């Protein structure tokens, strides 16, 4: 542990201390985060009702999830027959679904049910794909472990197919918060590219299995999708580029990088990109001026820190501190700016100490933890943003983000706090 001012520091990539008041979540949470948006499959939670109840809310949206609602009986006697019945019933009730993801949570994770065996049986009986995600909450040190489990499951679904005729890409690590998938799709269509699958903001079982037809994978959130992209390169020979659509500079760079790959860049396209960028800068000029030199503290998952950090810096913020709720050391290396403070896994007390030590002009954190800094009187921007606040990706997204920051910073309420 190091010390930064009064704030104790810990090395990255470690498990949380018990009682540390961590904001981290569990493997199941992570798996739901990634797989949540996939529409044409059943999501079946094998565990108690609570996991089902909570797991139906992903990034603030209520999703259709069913479960086995394990009781004492099943915990003692084993819940396998209940799982089997539940799967078969669910396929009868939603015959249009092409398959099922079965999330195994803590209870059955400890008792060690042979869930794979049941899945195979049900697959045979129903001729639907049944994929088991072994994601008991305790199985990983934080949610990113669940992200990996989800991507592992997705990877197993991909079949080797012929390359597409037209230039085709997959997008990896893009979760369609507030319509961001649509923004990115629009930029890529502008280049004349076909998007096969968006992992997982816009993915169906069928698209996933044919995602090996793409010529290029575009990796947005490296933290969640990097390993998956690597595997796709190894097994299907699909190269990937890391690209960010957060901020006008990053967006322009991403567009050029992808266009270059397909050899699509010409003067017209360049002009088009520039024009959009100028418009975005133009529309945000007043806001950028107001943000110039203001201090921001960012407390988020590491991948988000990178993208939001870019947006903030483009707005003119000085990022005085970042604290990652969860991250690998690789994630930290990916953050190309060097704020005075970098910390991992802040506890509630540490978050408060950061606020006191740095008195930031803006705090950016997740929607679950935002109320602490709000309560202590700090303008706070929470992510994921609600749908009406709009996508943060691409040029339009930069404008949306700027407006969001403006709303938070200029809210008159702050001036009354000490009034």
């Amino acid at each position, binding site marked *: 542990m190091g010390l930064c001012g009064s704030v104790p520091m810990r090395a990255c990539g470690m498990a949380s201390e018990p009682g540390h008041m961590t904001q981290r979540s569990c*493997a199941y949470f992570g798996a739901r985060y990634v797989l949540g948006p996939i529409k044409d499959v059943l999501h079946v939670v094998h565990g108690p009702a*609570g996991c089902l109840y909570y797991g139906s809310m992903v990034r603030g949206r209520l999703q259709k999830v069913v479960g086995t609602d394990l009781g004492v009986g099943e915990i003692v006697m084993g819940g396998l027959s209940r799982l089997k019945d539940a799967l078969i019933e669910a396929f009868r009730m939603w015959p249009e679904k092409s398959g099922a993801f079965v999330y195994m949570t803590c209870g059955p994770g400890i008792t060690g049910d042979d869930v794979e065996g049941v899945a195979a049986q049900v697959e045979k009986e129903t001729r639907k794909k049944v994929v088991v995600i072994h994601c008991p909450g305790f199985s*990983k040190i934080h949610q990113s472990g669940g992200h990996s489990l989800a991507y592992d499951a997705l990877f197993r679904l991909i079949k080797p197919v012929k390359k597409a005729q037209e230039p085709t890409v997959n997008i990896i690590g893009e979760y369609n918060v507030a319509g961001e998938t649509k923004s990115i799709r629009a930029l890529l269509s502008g280049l004349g590219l076909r998007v096969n699958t968006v992992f997982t903001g816009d993915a169906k079982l069928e698209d996933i299995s044919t995602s090996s037809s793409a010529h290029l994978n575009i990796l947005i959130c490296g933290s969640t999708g990097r390993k998956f992209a690597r595997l796709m390169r190894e097994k299907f020979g699909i190269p990937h580029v890391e690209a960010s659509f957060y901020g006008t500079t990053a967006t322009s760079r991403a567009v050029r990088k992808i266009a270059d790959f397909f050899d699509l860049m010409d003067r017209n396209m360049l002009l088009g990109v520039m024009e959009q960028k100028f418009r975005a800068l133009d529309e945000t000029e007043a806001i950028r001026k107001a943000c110039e030199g203001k201090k921001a503290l960012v407390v988020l998952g590491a991948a988000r820190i990178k993208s939001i950090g870019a947006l903030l810096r483009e707005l003119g913020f000085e990022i005085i501190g970042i604290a990652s709720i969860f991250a690998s050391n690789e994630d930290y290396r990916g953050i190309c700016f060097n704020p005075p403070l970098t910390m991992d896994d802040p506890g509630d007390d540490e978050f408060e100490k950061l606020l006191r030590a740095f008195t930031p002009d803006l705090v950016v954190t997740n929607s679950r933890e935002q109320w602490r800094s709000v309560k202590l*009187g700090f303008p706070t921007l929470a992510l994921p943003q609600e749908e009406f606040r709009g996508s943060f990706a691409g040029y339009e997204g930069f404008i949306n983000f700027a407006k969001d920051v403006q709303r938070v910073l200029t809210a008159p309420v702050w001036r009354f706090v000490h009034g």
Partner: protein
Amino acid sequence: MINSLSEIPIEGITYKNLKIEKKPITQDYVPPPLELVPSSKRAVCIDPSRTCMPLGAMWATLGVHRAIPFVQGAQGCTTYVRYTFARIFREPASIASASFHEDAAVFGGRQNLIRGIRNLVCRYRPELISIVTTCSSEVIGDDIHSFLSEAMDLLEEEFGREVLDVTRFVIVNTPSFAGSHVEGYNRASREFLRALAKSTGQKSRTLYFIPGFMSPGDIRELKRILEMMDVSFRILFDISDTLDCPLVGMPERIPYYPPGGTRVEDFVRAGDGSAIFALSPDAGRAGALWLEKVHRVAARIMPIPMGIGCTDEFIKSLSEIAEVPIPDSIKWERGILLDAMADTLHYTMMKRVALCGDPDFVASATRFVCELGMIPTYILIGTRSSTAPETVWKAAEEYNVKPVVFNGGDQFEWEYALKNDPPDLILGHSRCVNISREIGVPLVRFGFPVYDRVGYQRQPFIGYRGGERFLALIVNTLLDHHYPDDRTHQ
């Protein structure tokens, strides 16, 4: 824009003018196989209207001054609850996790508890820590009592005896695979009193109250009523300030604790109390009964005082036990509610209403809607209850209505009933919003949880004044509902 407008568009709100494309969310509805509709006939659970026990114990703990729940389980068990509280209260809530990982699953959570407690005590100096178990620790078979005793020994060794005077401990066993958040609260109510309450032999005149899942607004209203009744009282598990407090700015001391909450001392003295009221039978009864059995404190278990009948029962019981007359000011408020009921009877009478939520909320609300002349049709008691159906049936008999009661089913079967036989109104929590939109029937939000509208946690639904507000919500929701010629509701 002006030229494209017809003077009074009949649709009320004109989507057209918003110029946003309409896209269907799902394809056409296909009815499920009929035999799979009842939840008892299915293995698959769809949209449960309850979550697991630990949440209830955490809720209760957060109502205690400078108390922290320590959740003996994986991190998700806290994160999900923090998220749930954040959405309902829009307040920070400190909840600690034992951070179970593979080693804990294999070797048990001893180390997690011991180190976790030490960390909490050193870094947060709480006055109380509740140890809340989860399915993992229960399945592993953690011996929490011995772990805790070891932890306390180590603390004493390291920091001296005083440290245990500052921080008290309560263990609440809340395996997630049984009961629900309601039972989790119920157990907490017993375990807190078991761990803390003492009797000195010297009875006080103080009345104690276990509020169940009442909101901050409800608890504040309860206090106001008790002050009007001029009785000495303490609210146990009082979240009214801890989960709804002012914007404070940077506090002098960190870690920050919200002000308020029940003092540990109040739990200790409860053993001398003259009576204890559990105002939510399913969430608090255990505590009240335990106190009665062990410390001879008279227990009064009664439905949430909502509407006329249940509030009358509460006020009467209060007046009897505390031997105080019912003041005119309370009668006045009752009369105002009656006046509001008489003034709006044309809107409420014979309206068919479906209800959904936790047993205590649903039971009292059913009686209230009957008092308004509404006809309860389908009632989902989200957690199987032994008391709520009785309360419902008693009201149903008195008011000559015959609702279908689903005791502990999931929302799917209740929603199926609503699709086949839509009511005029739905009373339920925020997770009823989908069925409300699907069948085009307006939703009045109440109970646990309400998170998609603001201010609900601050406004009371209990007592005569809460009834007034509840009634206004009901009537205004009916009036807001856009009928094709909605000028009828000017």
